[in-house]
């Protein structure tokens, strides 16, 4: 009877499950599963800004010419052995490392090692509008656009096989930091040539080839990424045999997976106090330069009116938000810049919470009876905003007091969300910014400059010429005190115009099983699995 067979096979299955042999532990001992919070939009950090994509790609697949020293955030050599900056700051020469191998994968086999051609290819793709890879599949370079890279760099010149020179139009004090940031990765010119021959240009961002410690084995959209170690990596060899990104957008699922051992490391854990109670788990925290803010779409009414924005700024109880959302562990943001930035200005006046002032301002703005607005709450956890939805609910309750009805919009997938916000679908949005390098310019330029409005990371669509000019001036001087002054002025404009309301600066958290050894989090940019190991 076939029912009997069914029952029998079920029993066999159950038996098989129960007598789990020890062999699988050896497999898990050689692998790291990282539960990430979202899918990468692209495998090339040049083309993205989202931290999720950076986490998944930048440090794993690629190297940059320069890197940051983990201790003091100084710039140190990476693919460039050394470099030289002319006195006027307009010419920078990089001397490249030899015998650096690119990934060998199912889709590409390199015939030569890394050289100046790769550097030229990587940067000309961004700089040269007519480069064949410039607008493959409609990509943009939001980070580079936001720092105005193409108007800064006049030319990238190949001196010899292992020497390149960047010629700048004007000096820029954040230039080296930008090259050390997660976005300025080096991709393979040879791979580009191969793709252009078979006319599959768009694969350059989907099937990545880099020099980094891992290479892509398999990616299933929305599900997982599997990396294998790069056998011929130029630095210290990787100690694990597999690195898997398990894409788990749900906060609870990530924690559950950590607790059940399905993940070794998870991004942005919830219930952090709870995690500390488990002896086999550790909670890592790293001070990260970031800001979480409520951005207004200054192109859409009623937020084209400065007074409305100000009214809302007064109406929001930031202290309650810090207590509720960050469990009191974050700094309340006075301005965009966090305390740890050298340009931080303590003397700036603090935004006070005053429902009365808010009402008056709203009255002045011509909305005595309030209005209806939407808040787009980011769907993922980030250090600067661990729970945007709840934050939106708090703001909803706050604004109710001054007669504003808030609709909360959430549920979009992260990349779609960013895309929609970039297109200006929102009226206001809860977002934030994590610095890619310690230079204060990396805060102000990407999120508020005219150049990044609408295409980069400036989601307020705000464009203020005076503000932009101050930022430009600050970049062209190397004098720290002078720069501080410029930034203070710029921040004063922001405080007056309120294109966004900074809310908090917080640490970045991560939880992992105690089996996992090695440093994973950097102060800047994404997670790094290069040195990780497991017992």
């Amino acid at each position, binding site marked *: 009877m076939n029912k009997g067979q069914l029952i029998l096979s079920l029993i066999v299955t159950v038996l098989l499950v129960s007598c*789990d042999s020890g062999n*699988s532990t050896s*497999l898990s001992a050689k692998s790291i599963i990282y539960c990430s919070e979202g899918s990468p939009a692209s495998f090339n950090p040049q083309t993205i800004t989202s931290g999720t994509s950076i986490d998944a790609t930048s440090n794993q697949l690629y190297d940059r010419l320069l890197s940051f020293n983990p201790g003091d955030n100084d710039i140190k050599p990476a693919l460039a052995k050394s470099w030289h900056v002319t006195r006027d700051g307009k010419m920078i020469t990089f001397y490249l490392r030899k015998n650096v191998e690119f990934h060998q994968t199912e889709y590409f086999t390199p015939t030569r090692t890394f050289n100046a051609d790769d550097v030229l290819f990587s940067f000309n793709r961004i700089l040269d509008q007519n480069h064949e890879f410039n607008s493959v599949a409609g990509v943009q370079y939001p980070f580079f656009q936001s720092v105005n890279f193409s108007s800064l760099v006049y030319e990238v010149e190949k001196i010899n096989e292992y020497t390149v020179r960047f010629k700048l139009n004007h000096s820029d004090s954040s230039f080296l930091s930008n090259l050390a940031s997660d976005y300025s990765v080096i991709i393979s010119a040879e791979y580009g040539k191969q793709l252009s021959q078979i006319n599959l240009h768009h694969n350059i961002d989907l099937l990545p080839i880099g020099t980094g410690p891992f290479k892509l084995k398999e990616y299933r959209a*929305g599900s997982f990424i599997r990396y294998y170690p790069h056998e011929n990596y130029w630095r210290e060899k990787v100690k694990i045999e597999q690195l*898997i990104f398990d894409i*788990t957008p749900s906060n609870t699922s990530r924690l559950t997976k950590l607790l059940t051992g399905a993940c070794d490391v998870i991004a942005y854990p919830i219930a952090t106090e709870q995690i500390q109670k488990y002896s086999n788990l550790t909670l890592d925290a790293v001070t990260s330069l970031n800001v979480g803010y409520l951005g207004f779409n200054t192109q859409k009414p009623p937020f084209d009116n400065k007074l409305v924005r100000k009214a809302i700024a007064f109406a929001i109880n930031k202290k309650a938000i810090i207590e509720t959302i960050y469990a009191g562990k974050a700094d309340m943001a006075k301005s965009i810049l966090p305390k740890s930035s050298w340009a931080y200005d303590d003397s700036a006046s603090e935004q006070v919470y005053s429902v009365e002032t808010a009402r008056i301002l709203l009255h002045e703005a011509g909305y005595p009876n309030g209005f209806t607005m939407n808040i787009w709450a980011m769907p993922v956890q980030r250090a600067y905003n661990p729970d945007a939805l709840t934050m939106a609910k708090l703001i909803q309750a706050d604004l109710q007091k001054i007669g504003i009805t808030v609709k909360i919009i959430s549920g979009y*997938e992260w990349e*779609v969300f960013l*895309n929609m916000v970039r*297109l200006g679908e929102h009226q206001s949005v809860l977002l934030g910014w994590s610095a890619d390098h310690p230079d204060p310019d990396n805060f102000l330029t990407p999120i508020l400059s005219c150049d990044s409005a609408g295409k980069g990371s400036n989601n307020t669509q705000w464009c203020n010429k005076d503000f932009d000019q101050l930022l430009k001036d600050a970049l062209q001087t190397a004098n720290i005190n002078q720069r501080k002054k410029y930034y203070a002025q710029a921040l004063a404009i922001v405080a007056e115009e309120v294109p966004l309301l900074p809310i908090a600066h917080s640490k970045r958290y991560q939880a992992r099983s105690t089996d996992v050894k090695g440093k994973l989090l950097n102060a800047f940019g994404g997670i790094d699995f290069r040195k990780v190991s497991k017992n």
Partner: protein
Amino acid sequence: MLTFTLRRINLLLITIFLLTLVSFSLNFLFPGDPLVNLSGRINPTPEQLLILSEQYQHNANFFIQYWTYLQHIFKGELGVSMASRLPINSEIINLLPATIELSMTALIIAMCIGIPIGFIAAINHKKITDNIILTIAMLGYSVPVFWLALVAILVFSIQLNWLPSAGQISLLYEIKHVTGIQFIDILLSDSEYKWQAFQNASSHIILPACVVALAPGTLFIRLARTAMLDVLETGYIRAAKAKGLSFTQIIYRHAIRNALINVIRHVGLQFANLMTLAMVTEVIFNWPGIGRWLIESIYQRDYTAIQAGLLVLSSFIFIVHILTDFIYAALNPLARDSKHGT
């Protein structure tokens, strides 16, 4: 049997026709421009729209549009997903097998456990066993499935640490995607960890499948109980008793078969219910199936995906429906010959 088959195939065709009609009309019902929805892009270029308009005969009359839509469907072109920018048919081919795997396992669990329990309840009619079984059944189909899933995870994954809480298989195992049905793929693969992978996949399916199976299982208990009670009251059971067959003989030879046939008639209807549960369960258990994908598509307002998902899922349910009809007919001589299908 031939007429029966023809009738069923006829029914299937009509239903699929109606389904495509419903799905096609969604084009006009969904918010936004149908062409933009089809393009799979949030802001498609005018050239792309022009090409699409050409492809789907967008300026022609309703019938021609529908005809082109049908042609596209039969070519397997279901459009491009707005969220992932991948062609939807390839996504569905990737995801549907996982859903089939989960729902079929759940169906088997529900039937293998629910039906015998229902029979036991019927045999012990109006005794304590019957009452206990009925109470459990009542609770079983009242539990909201998402809550049950959460509690199951908390108990079996977190506290007891018996079973994994998410996914189809531990990602440690690298199994090549061939059929999409994990167990078959594992058997086809040549990984050295094949058997560990098999065990791992089995342990992963138990919890979600049981969660999905609970409500249909309890319904099967009730169906089987009623069917068995009805059968036990029939003349042929009395005749069999008069023949001198023992109680167990009667149950095994006559009662079970007849009661089972009546239960199987309802399996098709239950399957739609089961799929609903599977959709929600997939979300909670991170099961890489079509239900989770469909719900995420709604978050993304990915209308093309919703449309295609609806079409594929309902056709699948209907095909299962028809298949159970065939099984019913194969088991029941009465249904085979009747001129008018049930």
